């Protein structure tokens, strides 16, 4: 666990990823579908080439698919892989179909319950989902115990499913606001992130706005996650692009569609996408400058404002 004292944690994205992501480690991914995926952080993980990763999440979408497509992922544990209207997560799907990617399937409630166990410091959590389904028939075959069905000690005869705690080595999330100490304000939906972050050994937070600690202390009830759970803070405007950030900008359907076309095509087309938009960019700003003009950014920000 990171130091509990209040020390500034603002670093560059390069430094944060180099310090907390390791080959062979487990990574919790924030966001959901086309909302608030930690794209900047994931681009940096790919540039640094940390391999053999285990990915945890509830819905895993474009950020996970990029990591799989870059050949960095060994195993995924989640509730879904997809991008809804934009189609499936093609690299993920191909990896499972050709046997190069190991998966453990849970429901979304089961996954968030696993993070809940992790954040509470207990070894497992009971759920009443999964019963009767093939989620309890099949497992990844990795030898790791997926679940245990027990008899409710207070109501003998009632089956209850226990799912194991998850404690990711590092989680990577993108949020609206954070202060230099690592206090986090998530605006809008928060998916599984509060549980996942508090369950993680380290968390890298990229944020749209870096705010003063004084602002946090004035409105402490707005703090979603307090600083003891956060290891690094990176000021990274547009860090979820092309997914949306509530109150800041809408998703960019054109860019998601472009990624999906490359991911569906695979092979050379996918390799070119990575070369052009990840490896060929020194930073996430480079990528943004390549694909999202100032006019486009204004449009996406205005589209979000119109919805609030």
């Amino acid at each position: 666990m990171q130091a509990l004292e209040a020390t500034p944690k603002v670093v560059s994205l390069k430094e944060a990823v180099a310090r907390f992501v390791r080959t062979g480690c487990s990574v919790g991914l924030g966001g959901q579908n086309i909302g608030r995926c930690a794209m900047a952080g994931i681009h940096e993980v790919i540039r640094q080439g940390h391999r053999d990763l285990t990915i945890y999440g509830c819905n895993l979408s474009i950020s996970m698919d990029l990591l799989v497509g870059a050949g960095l992922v060994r195993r995924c544990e989640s509730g879904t892989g997809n991008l809804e209207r934009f189609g499936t997560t093609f690299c993920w799907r191909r990896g499972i179909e050709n046997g190069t990617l190991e998966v453990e399937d849970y429901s979304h409630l089961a996954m968030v319950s696993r993070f809940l166990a992790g954040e509470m410091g207990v070894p497992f959590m009971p759920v009443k989902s999964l019963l009767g389904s093939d989620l309890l028939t099949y497992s990844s075959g990795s030898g790791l115990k997926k679940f245990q069905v027990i008899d409710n000690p207070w109501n003998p005869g009632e089956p209850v499913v226990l799912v194991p705690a998850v404690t990711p080595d590092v989680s990577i999330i993108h949020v609206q606001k954070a202060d230099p100490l690592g206090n986090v304000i998530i605006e809008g939906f928060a998916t599984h992130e509060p549980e996942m972050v508090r369950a993680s050994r380290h968390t890298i937070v990229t944020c749209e706005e870096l705010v003063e600690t004084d602002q946090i202390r004035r409105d402490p009830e707005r703090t979603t996650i307090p600083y003891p759970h956060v290891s690094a803070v990176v000021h990274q405007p547009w860090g979820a692009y092309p997914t949306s950030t509530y109150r800041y900008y809408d998703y960019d359907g054109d860019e998601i569609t472009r990624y999906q076309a490359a991911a569906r095509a695979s092979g050379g087309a996918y390799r070119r996408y990575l070369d052009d938009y990840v490896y060929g960019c020194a930073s996430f700003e480079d990528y943004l400058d390549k694909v999202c003009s100032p006019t486009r950014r204004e449009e996406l920000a205005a589209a979000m404002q119109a919805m609030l």
Partner: protein
Amino acid sequence: MTDYTLQELMVIEAARQIRDGDVVFVGTGLPLLATAFAQRTHAPNLCFVVESGAIAPLVLPTPISVSDPRLMHRAVRLGTLREVLGCLLQRGLVDVGFLGGAQIDRFGNINSTVIGDYAKPTVRLPGSGGGNDIASHAKRLLIVTRHEKRRFPPRCDYITSPGYLNGPDARAKAGLKVTHPSFAVVTDLAVLEIDPATAQLRIARLMPGVSVEQVRKNTGFEPLVAHPVRSVEPPNPEQVRILREEIDPNGIYLKQSP
């Protein structure tokens, strides 16, 4: 006679299954249109619940994802996945849940995980998401799907979300808290419900102009038939107008040509 498409009638018929005041757990696509239509017409007090954490939003047209900000507009709370899947759904406070999948079998079980063998899939599908949780805990289950033989096999390749598993008491035996959920599968040919005696799908209503024989021919198992089989009521012009102009004005999900 009102000009409408079968897809539009599917949405309206699904909406008819929702009652005013219901807590409705919904994703995107046609279920979202059905819920929004119900809220706009006969069920103004229904409560949308969305997996990403939105509770009771006043939905703007037309969200394409559960994380779409259009699905969060003026919610009473934008919370967490645990709050909606745990504190509302598993807690037993959700009345209606929509489900979707590639296969629905004779017992109403749903597969959204894999076609073929789990270990060596022919096609890998997205997985459960909240589907297993909805099927486990909602009191009434709604499915909106095209009626094709391959979508209705005798047995799913993989049961992602439990219907009646393999018989009337199977859910209770498995330990599910909602032992006998009501069930409606709305397709472009018919509405199928669960026959209480056998826990198998039966044809309850037919879409206008469709015969029992047509449904049989497009179903991979022998569906039971209710007596009598009724007909799905066609929409009136105002319902079609609301759907086209207010619920999906840009034709994101609805094909406008009949």
